[in-house]
Structure formats: structure tokens, C-alpha cells
């Protein structure tokens, strides 16, 4: 088989894509987001994430999520060894789409809340939390 100049360029382009793609997808946080949204676009809007700016102890960081029209809210800590934190599904008898809990954070990082709204769209809110002592026992 003869390798023309054109073939060589195409192979080069292909190789670049092959290496760039896994790098992009390997971020576990993005995987978790894609699994939740099914690849849909995530906008800004009806979701509020309340988290402290500075948490002295990463073992127990209080957070609160709230939304007006969400049916499901997923919380992610992008800097943790496993980014997923919790997923709240609201049933017919929930009075409001809010929830508070306490989470572990391995270090200073972004906490993300993604809500699935009643109309099927997705919105997200991000909050950066500074952590003095990490909470994953490393």
C-alpha cells in the first residue's frame, strides 16, 4: 500500500482526535453529569445551592439545594475521588423542592447541583467551598 501525503495528513488528524477524546471524557464528574442529563445541555436558572464559603472540616459540610420546579436534583463534588454525592427525587407529597444534608469534601473544590425541571430541561448551580481539613481520610 502506498502512503500518499494526503493519507498521512488524515492519519495525523485522526490520531489527534483519538488522544483528545479519552482525555475529555475521562473526567468522572463529566461522566456523572452526562449520565444524569443524557447528554442534554445544562443551562442556568431555577436552582439554588447553598454551601459555606469556607468549611473548616471537610468531613461534614452542610449544604442545601432548592428549586421551584425540579423533579430531581443531583449534587456533585467535582474534586472528590468519587464525584457523586446524592440524588434527590421528589414525590407527589413533597411540599417544596428543597433538601439539606451534610457532605464530605476531600479538599477545596466546586460543588455542583444539577436539577431536572418539570419541562425536562436541566439547570445547574455551582459553589466553591474552601476546605481547611479534607474529609476523605487519605
Amino acid at each position, binding site marked *: 500500500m502506498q502512503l500518499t501525503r494526503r493519507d498521512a495528513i488524515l492519519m495525523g488528524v485522526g490520531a489527534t482526535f483519538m488522544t483528545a477524546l479519552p482525555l475529555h471524557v475521562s473526567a468522572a464528574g463529566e461522566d456523572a453529569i452526562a449520565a444524569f442529563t443524557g447528554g442534554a445541555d445544562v443551562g442556568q436558572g431555577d436552582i439554588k445551592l447553598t454551601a459555606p464559603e469556607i468549611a473548616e472540616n471537610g*468531613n*461534614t*459540610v452542610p449544604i442545601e439545594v432548592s428549586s421551584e420546579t425540579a423533579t430531581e436534583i443531583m449534587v456533585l*463534588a467535582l474534586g*472528590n*475521588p*468519587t*464525584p*457523586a*454525592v*446524592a*440524588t*434527590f*427525587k*421528589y*414525590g*407527589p*407529597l*413533597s*411540599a*417544596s423542592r*428543597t*433538601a*439539606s*444534608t*451534610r*457532605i*464530605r*469534601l476531600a479538599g477545596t473544590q466546586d460543588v455542583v447541583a444539577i436539577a431536572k425541571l418539570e419541562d425536562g430541561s436541566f439547570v445547574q448551580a455551582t459553589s466553591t467551598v474552601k476546605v481547611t481539613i479534607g*474529609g*476523605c*481520610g*487519605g
Partner: protein
Amino acid sequence: MADGVKPRVKVPKTASAGEKIVIKTLISHKMESGQRKDGDGNLIPRSIINRFTCDFNGENVVDVVLEPAISTNPYLEFEAVVPESGEFKFTWYDDDGSVYEETKEIAVE
């Protein structure tokens, strides 16, 4: 692993019909994340509560999937509406297959 697991739930005793009430739940559980190592450098296997549900008279209020990033003694706070008198049922599902349950009566005045 079911030793020392004790659910605690705070629900008002009475409410008016359709009122929004706040429910606070806590269960004592070590929530071993599976990331920590023991003295010999071996990983301590994960052992957490992985799901929590709250139902009122058979209708769902909230269904939560918990991951290792939830703190020890998982605490959850949320709001519910009570259309009539009845019973809240809280269920926690452990990684080891155990299920912990707690019920609370509420009267509508």
C-alpha cells in the same frame, strides 16, 4: 454491621391539612466511604446507607440516593405536605442488605 444503627426522626405531631411541614431525619451510621485505609495500609471496604425514602400513607415524599460523600450519621432535612392524618414511613437501605425503618404518626386538625 447492623449494630448501633439508630434512626431518629423529627416530625410535628399535628398539622393543618395541606400545611407544609419540615421533617428532619438522622441515622447513626459510620458511612465508611471505601477510601480510607486501616493501620496496615489495607483499604477499609465501603459500607454506607445507599438509599433513603420517605412515604406518607403509601405516597412518596422523597427518594434519595446516597453516595460515599455523605457524612457520617447521614442527616437529611426536607419538606412535606400532609393532606390528611396518617403515618410517615422512613426507610434506610444499607449496603449490607439491612433495611432500617421508622414510622411517625401525624394528626391533621
